[in-house]
């Protein structure tokens, strides 16, 4: 392939498009972690005392926990005392409207393709923009408000809807859940909150866009979505960060709750800075995401396209508590260059006749290591439950790796669990076949990879699917040569 090698090399060294840094005056607290820092964060956010108490309990629990070592990734453990846990763009006064937003911050989001001006936005998508530790803007609030939908930053929800936050925060991911969930519970800065009232179908996609900007900080956002009886919501999450030589920590918690007959669709396109070709820098993405199908016939769908981060460690899962509830997980995870991902899902069947579907597509290129780890647990009382799992791995080149660790626990005899797995390599043969029909190597790889991911992409909302396809193309540029 001598003729195509040049262009491939060129593309491989192409820079991460979102790697710029915004110069903005920030209020950043000193690095380090202790109870005083937790209090300081709570104070900055003008939180009620119950929230602070919850944070402190989490912090005390975290102190007794240790960093998990079971994921199939290797990295230098973060020094938690050298991270700053809160950084926010300074604003002189409280924002009355979107027009008062710091022009630098607004420009940042414009540059990322997320205009915060409601007129300019994609019709049908409301955005909550999170810049470092705070939510800086939420669009279409009023329009959603007319339907009784609450879509705001987490901090705002703590102040304005304490009864809802109090009832649900930690109800799906308790602060004792794991090391990073405990850390997040202690120091979480902001995130999105969303409540869809009974019987309401949210008329637009809700979306949060996370941007890490400040150096030496971590981002610890917390998202809570509640779909009340019969409600429906589709939620999108996107993220980017500047290119830096040091690793930055992103430890988020997302909790979803679906009551009787409610549906929550949560889609993520994760494009944190992956580090350079040699594995220098990049985001540590250690995230706990879980949904609870609390009500009968409720449904939660996770769809994720993971192309960024140096290390990814996340298992969006569903607790299928309500009878007849449905959990779905569709995932494409790409590791190129030195990236490592250990990702998968947990489907815990508690209710009767509960169903879950897992479709995981791992793509490894360069020296990337991609691990699928999934748990399917069917409890004794979850009779007549079904799971179908499909894990496919695609290898590009011969220096990458794919690993699969399925865990299955079934405690009754009336349930069915199916697991299918495959590993394939993008063959020279496939590429040659496409080229012989007139397609370039890049187009051939794109076509093959997109074909491989098709079952996942069709679960994404339209605009996102297009975005994901493009992103995949960029992430894999230079991986064949």
């Amino acid at each position, binding site marked *: 392939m001598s003729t195509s090698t040049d262009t491939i090399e060129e593309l491989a060294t192409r820079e991460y498009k979102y790697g710029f840094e915004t110069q903005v005056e920030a209020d950043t607290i000193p690095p380090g972690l202790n109870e005083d820092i937790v209090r300081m964060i709570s104070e900055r956010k003008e939180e009620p005392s119950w929230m602070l108490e919850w944070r402190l309990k989490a912090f005390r629990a975290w102190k007794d926990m240790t960093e998990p070592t079971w994921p199939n990734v290797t990295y230098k453990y973060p020094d938690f005392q050298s991270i700053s846990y809160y950084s926010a763009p300074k604003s002189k006064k409280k924002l009355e409207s979107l027009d008062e937003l710091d022009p630098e911050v607004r420009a940042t989001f414009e540059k990322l393709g997320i205009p915060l001006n409601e007129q300019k936005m994609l019709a049908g998508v409301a955005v909550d923009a999170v810049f470092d530790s705070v939510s800086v803007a939420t669009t279409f609030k009023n329009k959603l408000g007319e339907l009784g939908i609450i879509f705001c930053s987490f901090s705002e929800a703590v102040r304005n809807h304490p009864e809802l936050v109090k009832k649900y925060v930690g109800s799906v991911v308790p602060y004792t859940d794991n090391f990073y969930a405990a850390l997040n519970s202690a120091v979480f800065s902001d995130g999105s909150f969303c409540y869809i009232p009974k019987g309401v179908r949210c008329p637009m996609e809700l979306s949060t866009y996370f941007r890490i900007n400040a150096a030496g900080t971590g981002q610890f956002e917390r998202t809570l979505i509640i779909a009340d009886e019969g409600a429906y919501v589709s939620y999108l999450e996107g993220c980017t960060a500047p290119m830096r030589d040091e690793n930055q920590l992103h430890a988020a918690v997302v909790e979803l709750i679906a009551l009787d007959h409610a549906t929550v669709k949560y889609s993520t396109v994760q494009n944190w800075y992956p580090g350079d070709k040699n594995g220098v820098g990049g985001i540590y993405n250690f995230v706990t995401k879980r949904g609870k199908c609390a009500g009968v016939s409720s449904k939660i769908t996770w769809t994720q396209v993971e192309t960024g981060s140096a290390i990814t460690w996340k298992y969006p899962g569903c607790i299928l508590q309500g009878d007849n509830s449905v959990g779905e997980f569709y995932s494409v995870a790409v590791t190129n260059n030195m990236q490592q991902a250990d990702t998968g899902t947990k489907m815990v069947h508690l209710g009767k006749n509960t169903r879950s579907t897992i479709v995981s597509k791992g793509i490894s290129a360069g020296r990337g290591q991609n691990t699928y780890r999934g748990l399917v647990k069917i409890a004794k009382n979850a009779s007549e439950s079904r799971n179908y799992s499909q894990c496919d791995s695609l290898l590009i080149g011969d220096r990458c790796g794919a690993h699969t660790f399925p865990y299955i626990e079934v405690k009754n005899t009336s349930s069915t669990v199916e697991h299918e797995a495959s590993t394939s390599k993008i063959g*020279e043969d496939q590429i040659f076949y496409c080229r012989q029909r007139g397609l370039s190597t890049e187009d051939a790889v794109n076509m093959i990879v997109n074909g491989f991911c098709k079952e996942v992409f069709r679960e994404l909302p339209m605009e996102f699917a297009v975005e994901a396809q493009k992103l995949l193309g960029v992430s894999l540029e230079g991986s064949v040569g």
Partner: protein
Amino acid sequence: MLEIKNLHARVEDKPILRGVDLTVNAGEVHAIMGPNGSGKSTLAGVLAGRDSYEVTQGEIRYNGADLLELAPEERAREGLFLAFQYPVEIPGVNNGYFLKAALNAVRKERGEPELDAMEFMKLVKEKLKLLGMDPAFLNRSVNQGFSGGEKKRNEIFQMAVLQPKLAVLDETDSGLDIDALRIVAEGVNALRHPERAIVVVTHYQRLLNYIVPDFVHVLSDGRIVKSGGKELALELEDKGYGWIDQAAEPAGAKA
């Protein structure tokens, strides 16, 4: 159209082609026959630009250009088509979508406008009829789960859509039952054209009952050892490849 001179090629360190000379003009159908291991598929692969073959000597001119200087996709866009002996499966990629991308790549090169979905469907439906194929076939993944016969038929269908100048059919008859063979051959015959050349690579004479060649060449041990008209194929059928080896100067060990 195609002029091969003293072509030598090897796979890793093993020389396979050891001085092939061949001239093919527009409108002609040439058959390349030979025993297993004689270098037939290597010749087809070298023409298409498969990079596991290394050309060590000789040259290939294609419509006046140096073919060996062109990347595989450039050759394809210039109208060189290879019907694969083992068509490759591409899971999840829609057959119709794949073919549309290929056709538009070729059309772009020719300076023709790209076809939109409607125009493409109209063209394709016509060609499907030619090979007696069901339109549902377009919605399946490229070659995935196809029977041997369907795969070969798909190759000729692609050829019908892409309208190449030079088509190389590599063992298109292998794995076909007699009915499928007839359909495939009829498809190929419908594509015979004064401006198109076809090179049929085959082990057996059987295919040549249906696709009657203008010239037959016998490849043995990396060289064309005998050329003739269509009668040569029948003679071979009769006497076997051993007859050729005796006729030609005995060459080293055969694979």
